[in-house]
């Protein structure tokens, strides 16, 4: 059922006739493009224009050129928000991927019964709303009476002020991310593992390969596309983190802005302080960071091939 268009190049008139003949098809796909034009493309162009302006939403819009960007590059809070976002991303993604792999390997063992039951329970955190997760975790990580501090003091350590401590805030946010996404990614890894044909393992075993060799020479390479999917989606999600810190420590990002992520900073500048121009500059900064990351991921894959 090939859908690739293999017709030879046509004369312009013929293309036009072909298009007219297919006007029904164009009509049926048009809603997406109309919606995208109005609520996708236009806002992006508007965003660029706003980033070059100074506007509080009420007064007149003033064109200021690159001033917002100049300020952005020297704004310590912006850099702090980038650093915070990256730290949270790293301390959540690495343990999350590791744990997800472990869970996937365990679930993939041939004798595990009730696999569907396990999958459902592991997936459950992911369908729970971030708002709910953040509310529950802010209580679990509550500084004076929280469950985590209870465990810590039980083990003989001092309680940690999770809302005011530079690392504490980030750990609490990372814990929410890890809890919410480990199961999801484990299911994705499991699907990848189950796609590897059994005959490959059998052949390797007949050739006398050790378990470790089978793991490094067959499982890991064949799992790479799935790994890439998980890394890319986690990266994009990690750069956009907002609700977790906002609900944990508020719009300011907590004491000293230790929980201030890039999107939280964007939200704060645009919707709390009404600095639409500067907010747009932050949005464009975020977009560039995500693009650079995607490019980096893509380069890594290219090289490995």
């Amino acid at each position, binding site marked *: *059922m090939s859908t690739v268009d293999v017709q030879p190049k046509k004369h312009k008139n013929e293309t036009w006739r*072909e298009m007219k003949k297919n006007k029904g098809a164009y009509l*049926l*796909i048009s809603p997406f493009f109309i*919606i995208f034009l109005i609520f*996708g493309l236009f806002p992006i162009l508007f965003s660029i224009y706003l980033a070059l302006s100074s506007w509080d939403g009420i007064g007149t819009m003033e064109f200021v050129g690159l001033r917002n960007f100049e300020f952005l590059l020297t704004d310590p809070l912006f850099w702090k928000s980038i650093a915070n976002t990256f730290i949270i991303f790293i301390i959540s993604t690495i343990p999350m991927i590791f744990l997800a792999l472990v869970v996937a390997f365990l679930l993939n063992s041939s004798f595990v019964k009730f696999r569907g039951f396990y*999958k459902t329970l592991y997936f459950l955190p992911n369908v729970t709303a971030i708002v709910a997760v953040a*509310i*529950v975790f802010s209580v679990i990580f509550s500084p004076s009476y929280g469950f985590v501090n209870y465990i810590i003091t039980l083990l003989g350590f001092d309680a940690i002020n999770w809302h005011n401590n530079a690392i504490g805030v980030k750990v609490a946010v990372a814990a929410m991310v890890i809890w919410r996404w480990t199961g999801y990614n484990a299911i994705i890894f499991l699907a990848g593992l189950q796609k590897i044909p059994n005959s490959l393992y059998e052949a390797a075993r007949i050739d006398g390969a050790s378990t470790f060799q089978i793991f490094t020479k067959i499982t890991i390479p064949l799992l790479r596309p799935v790994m890439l999917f998980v890394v890319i989606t986690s990266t994009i999600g990690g750069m*956009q983190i907002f609700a977790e810190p906002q609900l944990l420590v508020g719009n300011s990002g907590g004491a000293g802005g230790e929980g201030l992520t890039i999107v939280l900073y964007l939200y704060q500048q645009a919707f709390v302080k009404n600095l639409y121009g500067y907010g747009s500059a932050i949005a464009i900064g975020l977009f560039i960071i995500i693009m650079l990351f995607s490019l980096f991921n893509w380069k890594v894959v290219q090289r490995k091939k």
Partner: protein
Amino acid sequence: MSILKKIILHTCLIIGVLISIFPFYWLIVMSTNDSSAAYTFPPVWTFGDQFFVNVQKVFAEIPFLQSMFNTLIVSTLSTVLVLFFSSLAGFVFAKFKFPGKNKLFIFTLTTMMIPAQLSLIPMFIMMQEIGWIDSYKALIIPGLVSAFGIFWIKQYAEGAIHDDLLNAARIDGCGIFRMYWNIALPVLKPALAFLAIFNFMAVWNDYLWPLIVLNDPSKYTLMVALANLKGLHATDHAAVMTGTFLGTLPLIALFLIASRQFISDIAAGAVKD
């Protein structure tokens, strides 16, 4: 594999499950206890009998049922529209040839890479200009068709709908929309079911955009209402946890009903080559 290994493996799996469901257990414990339970050390472990008292407090503090109803309306309407427009486009992309088709499809996929935050501020300004602040149009119309939905349906339709069937319909004088309605839709049901649950959950759980465009508490969706409840009651954990529990319950129920198919579809979508 030895018995010992099996025991270790199952223990690990069960510990993982316990960690997965612990916050839910905690949520229920807190919402059935008095709010003072949140301030006792060591923490209270067991269910209390204060659930209905807490429910009453939640209902008194925020228009909870109203928010639930709002969310239901928005999620349902959005899902119906997304299903319709996305499947229409997905079907056309999968089964018809027309000039520029591949370019248009690749363009559709590319739009998925744009982070939503990039257009957040201009979108808000637009909503102000056209008077959609506090209107559900702001939540529904911009997400009318999803690029992911188009992609998902196209992938499915390519394999599931037979060309012979469409050709026969064409000979009988069927128009493209009739083919969609009579032939494609029934076949696409499984793909539509997944898209429906996926979209419904996403809209139900959405937070940032509703937070920005809704000002009137009577218009709040559940997520905004819950965040608001948390802000109102920094100290009354029991009420906040009860609201959160009630607001999470419907979606958990929906997920448990549809989980098997939903999970395997998510996994299939991710490992597609």
